[in-house]
């Protein structure tokens, strides 16, 4: 016997149910009445166990996303609400899952580089560097000094660019749209620098295994100098605007508070972890590139709420500018790629004007780096969002046998579920902004 629906829209699902098991599992996770209401309505094998005129009582399930202006891409939050308060929240990710770990297994190490651009697409340079460092560790390739300094600098630039977007979008989520456009002006300046340095504005793919693709031109150094001269004041201006803005503070204070123990337990990483008072930053924990040689602070707050995370990121931007300044001062002359045809691409002059160079170039593109069989290594960097690590396994061929990406957004999103519970809908968007996930990375 099927149940005659008594309200308009009750039989909507009979006509079209897409991925029914998936949604059912989500509702079951919420322990919502939806779970069996759907079964009841669509499989309908007996008397209704539920008064169909008020099937859900007071509760309301709100699907925020995957298409929603505040979910930073395709995050889906299924929240169970009582009025404006979120009682339970379940995050459903995977709407941007492209299987890049699987794809990596059929690419040479160098070929996989452009895919890393598309992971955390707000700071492609850091991802490139993380990948290169992991491969270099796996194959034991040494990188020339100058390349390391340039990488350090560019990684910090990527961090500023990512944090700028976080700031603008975070404020836009809170309803202040103007700052969004100001930060995008800053990002535009950074894009211009990337354009000058790498030849691409957004997905740079500038790093190479064993070094970087091209050296800095005098004009790009001038642009970098101009940037580090101008931007401390600009960022300080944003801080002056926001640090005393009552509405902004009230919307962030004591929202999504996470203690240091909880943060470690939940596996938070990056600025979110440091906002809770855990002094963990890969740049200090296991220094890579030139972070050992430059002088910088790691901002830490102990409150663990959205405001603390905001302060941490704002201070990080200023620290990054400090690092870039030092890199510019201490940038040594020298090669930008390892001079070893088995480890890195030969320079273009060599490729165009010598037979060996061309053969090496061909072989490197065709086979590439071949770490020894059974080699396995994990290398992490401090990406803008947190610890970005690549675990690689080699079977002795030019293609990795297993690539695992430990992406910071994935780790951070997990904690977001716990943060959301008990906050209001308006806080949900502020929380998503403050955790700063990028779905390209979380969904792999």
């Amino acid at each position, binding site marked *: 016997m099927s149940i005659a629906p008594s309200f308009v*829209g009750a039989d909507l699902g009979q006509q079209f149910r897409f991925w029914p098991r998936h949604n059912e599992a989500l509702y079951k996770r919420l322990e919502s009445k939806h779970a069996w209401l759907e079964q009841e309505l669509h499989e309908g094998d007996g008397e209704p166990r539920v008064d169909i005129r008020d099937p859900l009582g007071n509760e309301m399930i709100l699907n925020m996303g995957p298409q929603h202006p505040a979910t930073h891409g395709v995050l889906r939050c299924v929240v169970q609400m009582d009025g404006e308060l979120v009682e339970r929240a379940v995050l459903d990710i995977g709407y941007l899952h492209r299987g890049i770990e699987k794809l990596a297994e059929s690419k040479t190490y160098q070929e996989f580089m452009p895919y890393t651009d598309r992971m955390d697409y707000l700071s492609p340079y850091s991802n490139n560097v993380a990948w290169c460092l992991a491969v270099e560790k796996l194959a034991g390739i040494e990188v020339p000094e100058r390349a390391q300094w340039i990488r350090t600098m560019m990684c910090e630039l990527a961090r500023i660019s990512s944090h700028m977007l976080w700031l603008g979008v975070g404020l836009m989520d809170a309803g202040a749209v103007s700052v969004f456009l100001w930060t995008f002006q800053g990002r535009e300046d950074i894009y211009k620098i990337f354009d000058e340095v790498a030849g691409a504005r957004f997905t740079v793919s500038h790093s190479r295994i064993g070094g970087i693709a091209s050296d800095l031109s005098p004009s790009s150094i001038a642009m970098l100098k101009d940037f580090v001269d101008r931007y401390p004041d600009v960022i300080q201006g944003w801080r002056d605007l926001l640090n005393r803005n009552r509405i902004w503070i*009230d919307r962030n204070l004591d929202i999504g508070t996470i203690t240091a123990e909880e943060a470690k337990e939940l596996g938070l990483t990056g600025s979110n972890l440091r906002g809770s008072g855990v002094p963990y930053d890969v740049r200090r924990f296991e220094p890579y590139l030139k972070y050992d040689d430059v002088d910088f602070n790691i901002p830490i707050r102990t409150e663990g709420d959205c405001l603390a995370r905001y302060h941490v990121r704002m201070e990080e931007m200023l620290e990054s500018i400090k690092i870039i300044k030092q890199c510019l001062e201490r940038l040594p002359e020298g090669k930008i790629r390892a001079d070893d045809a088995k480890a890195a691409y030969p320079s273009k002059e060599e490729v165009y004007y010598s037979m060996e160079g061309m053969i090496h170039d061909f072989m490197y593109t065709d086979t590439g780096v071949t770490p020894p069989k059974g080699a396995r290594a994990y290398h992490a960097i401090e990406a803008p969002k947190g610890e970005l690590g690549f675990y690689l396994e080699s079977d002795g061929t030019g293609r990795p046998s297993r690539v695992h990406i430990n992406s910071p957004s994935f780790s951070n999103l997990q904690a977001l579920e716990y943060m959301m519970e008990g906050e209001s809908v*308006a806080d949900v968007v502020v929380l998503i902004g403050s955790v700063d996930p990028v779905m390209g990375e979380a969904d792999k």
Partner: protein
Amino acid sequence: MDLGLLWTAIFGFLVINGMLTAAALLVYAERRVSGFMQNRPGPNRVGPAGLLTPFADVAKFLFKEDVVPAASARFIHSLAPIMMVVIAMTVPAVIPFARGVVIADISVSVLVVLALTSISVYGITLAGWSSNNKYSLLGGLRSAAQMISYELSMGLAVVSVVVMAGSLSLVEIVEAQNTAWYVFLNPLGALIFIITAFAETNRAPFDLPEAEQELVGGYHTEYSGMKFGMFFLAEYVNWFVASFIIVTLFFGGYLLPFEETILSLVPALEGTVLLGILQFASLMAKVAFFAFLFIWVRWTLPRFKYDQLMTIGWKYLLPLAIINVLIIAIGVVAAHALF
């Protein structure tokens, strides 16, 4: 001065069209001002300096497909935007534009204004409910709660003005400000009224009902085409009208600054058309300032959260408004006793 019925009709027609044009101009102004605040040019392609952009928008709205959700309550879904526009366009009927220039000079015009702003909550709530969308519903509920909470303080702020003027007629309230604008005699009331006017028109930072980042579009999520255009229009007209009311109640309405002095210096001006034009210009200048204030605030401040909004409404504004009414009442009585 009593205009004949025909004149009233013609004048009403002019006012409605004036309002529509003003709304279009406000759309343009908002975009240009926000562009200026955000270091970008703003719309500058359609017409000279982009002035025709709003008209291009209207054309776009008219040609867009009108999507009505399958599971919505169709009649109410269509009714809501019409209600919003009609109510927004009715309020100017009682606003005096210059001395003696008002469509309907009724003795309780303040009550009419309050009543109409109260009804406009129905437009939003019904739109939210009839769309059969959770975001719309939340937006509609928020709006209802917000308007009811702020209406109290708004009403009390108006009461303080009514007490001072001793009349419920907007024309008389304006004339009573001939000696001094009420913003100087009653600054707290003016402040409360301006804040509540922001809340009543659902402008940032009180734009919770349509909080774009949380509720997608709030109550108008499920509207498209000209129906959405009507909400849009109603919002801008509301905001324009709110500026008019602010000016009328607290900033001397159509009165020129130091009008008495000017008239005593140039007595020939009394009763001429030129004076009327000057008064209208003074009114529009003041209104333009408040319209700009609305834009300015919107592009500067983040949005309130629901509980913060309620805290401000009930815990701060309402007690303040009550105290203000008491002070004003005592002041008025004292003034009568003394002079």
